[in-house]
């Protein structure tokens, strides 16, 4: 293990993780008395600026975990703090606001609204967030420029290639400058070349804007590029692998604490 050079001075506050999950359980009722437990007490901490990946076979609970991270669903038990907000204390009605402001979704099959053009698609989260039209327009154009799609502003999704669609979807995910970007198999429907382009955009967002990204993937090669790989199996995180290319410094910079702790699942303290 590398030697840690910039250990923070005593008394410096430890940074709170953006995603802070403690003992998350998720069970589905498939008719009493049967109960199907999908997640068996997952604890996870993801820090600001981290780019992590979650891998695992289908049925391992990846999607359920992602739904909980993305507050599309609530855990049956356990605590979840998203960017310091206790999700269990948020009313159902306000969850949509949390999704709108704090989370940017990128899906495998892009899920753009087919009847509206690229610009309108990017504007959509801002519209739901109540941003005024002029500001919305400006920001959407800026985001499209960021993903190098500024010349496709008025195109409908079906006039675009898969890679182009995914870039627009990423621009849309960035619309409200969310705390995390949640990407579910973003390259799954793309060939390796365009998949590469999309991954480059994620890396760029991570490096240049310090975005926290959670990538769910089957592709181990892509997962290897991220800071940390979580492997799931049967509703548990069975392993955590820290990218060997990351220096302890990097991790220290992000988390503000000893990487040795993180192997235990990253308790908040």
């Amino acid at each position, binding site marked *: 293990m590398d030697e840690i050079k910039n250990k923070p001075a005593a008394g410096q506050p430890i940074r709170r993780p953006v995603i802070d999950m403690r003992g998350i359980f998720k069970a589905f009722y498939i008719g009493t008395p049967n109960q199907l437990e999908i997640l068996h007490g997952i604890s996870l901490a993801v820090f600001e600026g981290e780019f992590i990946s979650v891998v695992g076979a289908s049925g391992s609970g990846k999607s359920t975990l992602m739904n909980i991270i*993305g507050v599309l*669903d609530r855990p049956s038990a356990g605590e979840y703090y998203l960017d310091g907000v206790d999700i269990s204390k948020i009313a159902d009605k306000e969850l*949509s606001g949390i*999704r*709108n402001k704090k989370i940017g979704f990128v899906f495998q099959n892009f*899920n753009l*609204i087919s009847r509206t053009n690229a610009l309108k698609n990017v504007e959509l*989260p801002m519209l739901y967030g109540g941003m005024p039209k002029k500001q919305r327009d400006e920001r959407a154009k800026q985001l499209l420029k960021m993903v190098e799609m500024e010349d496709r502003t008025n195109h409908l999704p079906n006039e675009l290639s898969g890679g182009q669609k995914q870039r627009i979807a990423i621009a*849309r995910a960035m619309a409200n400058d969310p705390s995390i970007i949640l990407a579910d198999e973003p390259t799954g429907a793309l060939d390796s070349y365009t998949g590469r382009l999309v991954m480059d955009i994620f890396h760029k967002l991570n490096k240049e804007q310090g975005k926290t990204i959670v990538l769910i993937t089957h592709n181990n090669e892509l997962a290897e590029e991220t800071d940390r790989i979580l492997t799931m199996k049967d509703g548990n995180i069975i392993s955590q692998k820290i990218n060997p290319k990351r220096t302890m410094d990097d991790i220290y910079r992000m988390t503000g604490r000893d990487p040795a702790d993180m192997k235990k699942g990253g308790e908040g303290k």
Partner: protein
Amino acid sequence: MLGIIIGISSVITITTLGGIMEKSVTDTYDALGTTLVQIGLHTKPDADRDYFEFSDFISSEMIEEFEKKFEGRVTSVSMSDSVGSGTVRVNRENLSVDIAGVSPGSINGSMTELVKGRYVTEKDMKAYRQVCIISEKQAAKLYGDENPIGKIFTFTYNNLSYDFTVVGVYKSSMSKLMSAMVDMTGQDWDTTIYIPVTTAQLMMYYGDMTSVGYFYYFTFMGNADESVSELAADAVEFFNTRYYRDNDAVEVMSYTAEQELSMFSNMIGIVSMVITIIAGISLLVGGIGVMNIMLVSVTERTREIGVRKALGATNGSIRMQFITESMIICLIGGIIGILLGLLLGNIVGMVIGITAPASVGAIVIAVTFSMAIGVFFGYYPANKAAKYDPIEALRYE
């Protein structure tokens, strides 16, 4: 949407046509004068016979008495009797004419107007003169450009040939609606000729002078200063107390133009109501159709709903989106319906020669109503969409 189009267009057509009909009816009665009263025989409800005897008839003496008594209140009196129809031979073609016996006062409150010559006079009446007033169209057909006055008009009635001298030419001042209906029958021939009523009755009763001067009914025009119904009631009372008190079966009754007008309005009202009900049913069916379209659309776009929710759409904004869509569908249907209805109404109006202005109220109501249908029938599908679970919706294929 078709249902909405049909429903709204029929409502607009009906209101437009209703407007046209009402306008034409009021036009007609304005022309007739709303002070027109008819006094006619009528059997008493508890009478033991249901026919009139000759002795029951209103005699010209009675009418004279009435005129004297009501002088100043009654402006003119008309006695008339329809003789039946005769035939005129024109260019080896037999044309039928209706022969109407009239008195000098009959021109008032009739739908005719004299354009040439004179009308029937008292002298014509007393002398049983064989004079007639023919229509412009008849004059044109029979005499062309020649002056018809003084010409002999020959017609056959009851297998007897009559020679009448033309003394006047009249023109129909029928309402446009009625003349349009006549025009539609393709006639260039007003069928009626007017002759003195005494002459007419003499013809009818084969020259029996004692039968002349008795009527089933007569009409008079009241003074415009006075309420028509009051005048009519007074007239009825005059006849019934003076001449029909001892008659155990028959008395007189009045009919005023006002009564007829209200009857006609009622009729239009009933017709409009029936069509409005039909329109209502088609709107209901249309609304259900829209609901169906929206349900299909919601199901088809399940995934989109999921995406929108993931991007932060609230249930309320999803609901609003679909209600708005449903409202727009209904509004488009409503607007097409309004245009179609106006078109239909105006085509019919053009055919009968009267155009009524489109009822702005009806259009406003139609627009509001179609939007209301949109909201009402769109609510259920929209609510269904709003309540989708985002995870399920995102997974939907």
